[in-house]
């Protein structure tokens, strides 16, 4: 799916918990997520903290979209 979106001409960032799978399915810009049942959240945190965490991840995803890449790249911290 990620490949088809990219093929359509759209830059895609894949926010995904299991990055090796993301590599296998052919994503180019990859941002590692938190956990499978809650990729962009952490129920252990209070609401405010959790949203901050999510914002950090989304900001990282936006940064990835603004970064030129040559092939596959995982955006670690």
């Amino acid at each position, binding site marked *: 799916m990620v490949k088809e979106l990219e093929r359509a001409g759209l830059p895609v960032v894949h926010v995904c*918990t*299991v*990055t*090796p*799978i993301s590599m296998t399915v052919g994503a180019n810009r990859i941002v590692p997520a*938190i*956990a*499978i*049942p809650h990729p962009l959240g*952490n129920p*252990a*945190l209070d609401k405010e903290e959790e949203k901050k965490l999510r914002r950090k991840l989304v900001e990282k995803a936006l940064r990835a979209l603004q970064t030129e890449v040559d092939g596959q790249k995982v955006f670690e911290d």
Partner: protein
Amino acid sequence: MNYYILTNNSQAKEEFEQTHNVRFVDGKLIDVLITARDLINNGAVLLSHPLYGSVKPNETPYRSILLREGKPQADGLPAPADPESVRLIGNAISAFEKFIDKKEVTDPRLLDDFQVVDLSLLRSAVESADL
């Protein structure tokens, strides 16, 4: 090694509950796979393959799987999911789904046969794990 046996096979439970850590699933084979998947999503790591080669899913009602806990992260998050375990359990569940739904096995002799084979395959995994 610090691992546990996830099983819905009462013979496996009987054999190993004194000596090993057994988590019994009171349910069907698919319930064992789904329980394993949820554990894996929260960081558990598969030690044995969730499919048995020749006894096809949807045929035997029993399944026993070896897992170990992942190391939790510092900030209270569960351990990161192990990619290989995620892949294998995902493949196992889709393999299960594609086989035809058969009527439930009720013949006690047959159930015993399935339990014995499941137990044997589990033993061979435990032997390797306990080395």
